């Protein structure tokens, strides 16, 4: 397992290096360079133009530029964003990355859970109106034109019903006069969410030692109590209103991203379940007289999960792409919107920085899924 982990991480680092190389030469391949914006000014004498080019390091041959670029990237110097002029790219990204991560992780977790649950159910009850409806609506959501769908969500829930704000990250009216920054509040929100998840996992682990099944009568009050403690702590801290404002802005994008990405998991679970149901051990479990639900959840669904985990890579990548679109429609200031704005204003250092982050995120997701697969399927571990 450790050897596999090391090998897989090594591969990831190599791939990341390839991505950096690829983006660098892509930028090299396009006509013009960073300096052309200044050099095109007709008032500048030729010497000044040469000076500007030299200041950017553009007088050096391409391979030397590449080495400098590589060194800078590895030391965390991603350059200065043209669009947000004096701020370095890394600073801009550090502000935006947590926002994308929250959007992406929440939506992925929820959509995977819902997709798996529904897929399991429709495969078990084959051929009803429910299956037909779920497949059709799943395919519709899966192939729905994401921007149009997101705009429709905004129109219905934000504009017509007025339940949620139309877009953006926060409401300036609420934040006027606040003496803390949005990132401080958001960081603390992330910390409390992480604390709650750790707490929940610990409770689950602890309860598992008492029996095979977690008695939900015991677990639920403890978890609710933990959640209550966090809510009370936020209310007393004085910045609870600000946090609530961010949460309000978060609900609609997360819900939209969840809706468009759960269908893939659902359809796949259905197919995988249909293949597993025909296996002999499912028949054996039924013949033993086990309850229907237990056969479905413990015998069929567990084994049907393997191909789904394999294709989790696809759905994660789909969700990353989806979050770029969702961010642009909801004006959610994450990495996706940053990438898009940088592309529109030809802010190349920021484009490369954002792409580097998105590439790293997807590679990381890929590695995690691979490791998860090895954990779930012992046959691979012992090869």
């Amino acid at each position, binding site marked *: 397992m450790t050897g596999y982990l090391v090998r897989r991480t090594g*591969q990831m680092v190599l791939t990341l290096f390839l991505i950096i190389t690829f983006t660098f030469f892509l930028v090299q391949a396009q006509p013009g360079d960073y300096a052309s914006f200044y050099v095109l000014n007709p008032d500048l004498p030729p010497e000044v133009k040469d000076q500007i080019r030299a200041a950017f390091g553009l007088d050096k041959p391409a391979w030397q530029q590449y080495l400098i670029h590589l060194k800078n990237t590895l030391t965390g110097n991603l350059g200065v964003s043209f669009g947000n002029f004096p701020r370095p790219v890394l600073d801009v990204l550090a502000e935006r990355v947590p926002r994308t991560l929250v959007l992406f992780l929440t939506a992925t977790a929820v959509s995977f859970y819902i997709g798996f649950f529904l897929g399991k159910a429709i495969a078990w009850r084959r051929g009803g109106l429910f299956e037909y409806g779920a497949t059709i609506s799943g395919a519709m959501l899966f192939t729905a034109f994401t921007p149009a769908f997101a705009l429709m969500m905004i129109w219905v829930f934000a504009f017509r019903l007025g339940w949620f704000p139309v877009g953006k990250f926060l409401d300036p009216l609420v934040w006027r006069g606040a003496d803390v920054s949005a990132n401080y509040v958001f960081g603390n929100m992330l910390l409390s969410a992480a604390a709650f998840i750790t707490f929940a996992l610990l409770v689950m682990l602890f309860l598992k030692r008492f029996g095979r099944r977690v008695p939900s009568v015991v677990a639920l009050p403890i978890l609710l109590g933990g959640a209550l403690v966090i809510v009370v702590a936020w209310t007393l801290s004085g910045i609870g209103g600000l946090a609530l404002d961010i949460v309000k802005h978060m609900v609609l994008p997360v819900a939209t991203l969840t809706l468009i990405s759960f269908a893939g998991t659902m359809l796949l679970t259905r197919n995988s379940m249909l293949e597993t149901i025909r296996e002999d051990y499912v028949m054996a479990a039924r013949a033993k007289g086990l309850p229907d639900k237990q056969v479905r959840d413990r015998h069929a669904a567990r084994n049907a999960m393997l191909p789904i985990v394999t294709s989790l*890579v696809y759905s994660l990548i789909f969700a990353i792409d989806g979050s770029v679109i969702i961010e642009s429609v909801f004006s959610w200031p994450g990495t996706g919107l940053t990438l*898009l704005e940088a592309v529109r204003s030809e802010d190349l250092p920021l484009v490369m920085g954002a792409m580097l982050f998105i590439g790293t995120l997807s590679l990381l997701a890929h590695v995690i899924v691979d490791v998860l697969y090895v954990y779930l399927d012992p046959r691979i571990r012992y090869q």
Partner: protein
Amino acid sequence: MTTPVPVGPIPTPEFEVELGRGRVRFVLARLRLMWRSFRSGWGIFMESRMGRLSLFTIVAFALMAAAHPILMAFVWDPATYDPVTGYSFDQVEQPAPPSWKHPLGTDPLGRDVLSQLLYSTRSEFVLGITAALVTVGIATFVGAVAAYYGRLLDAFFMRLADLIIALPAISLLIVLSALFHLNLFYLALIIGVLGGFGGTAIILKSQALSIKVKPFIEAARVAGGGDFHIIFVHIIPHLLPLALLYMMFTVTSAIFAEAVLSFLGLLDLRMSWGIMIHTANTGGYLLGGTRYWWLIVPAGASITLLCSAFYLAGRALDEVVNPRLRRRND
């Protein structure tokens, strides 16, 4: 099946004629076999409700695409109905609601929405099918070669595929659109190449691996077939059903990618469904909700319908290719 190959230094004319006839008979037998398997596959495809529904939708869109040039040539006046440069002079206010003259109304710039919709259908088909052909061409070849030769070639192509899978395609296309002018052809080519060297290659390779160990491959090798012959005559034909299936999925993703990029205003196209929504959105008509429905519903519904039609066609084909997915009572 095969005819005896003539022995001797110079084949007599009779032999040549006989050989020719044998070839013809062989090809005919093969065609008949293909026709039969096509018919049984067609039966299974049409039996599923998804298959019929998707085929109907695709044919309807194809008819729409075919209708546009005919309407432009015989019925519609180009000055009013051209999808890009036309202008409807009759209305005073420009996003005009549907009327007899403009069945789907006009857009904020006074152009006929129905004409735009039909015109775009054709380019969506061209884009989708080009991308799918490129994908399947590359993926079938790469999959067959990687499975047949194995070792270094296999490792190289599979690592490449892993790398491409790990890259989010829309984000990559957004970056590419910043650097180059993407038109329909380049977009189709890029999507095709990404798909062909990416996930589709892995799936076709694993299929090719299971074909490679079948007895008829060994028989072909014993009969003296070369690598090239075995790959092209014995492996690739068996990959084609699965390749056709993945063509459907590529069409879906190509149309989707085009629509998203056009919606974000990053493509260099004349007109497309994504651009129609982009025009409505940048004009601020979308939050008008149902008041300006003809600006978003036709284009949005077309994207969803055509994408899901190709997706469902793929699903129905999946049941043809993969018998384990069929219902138990079949």
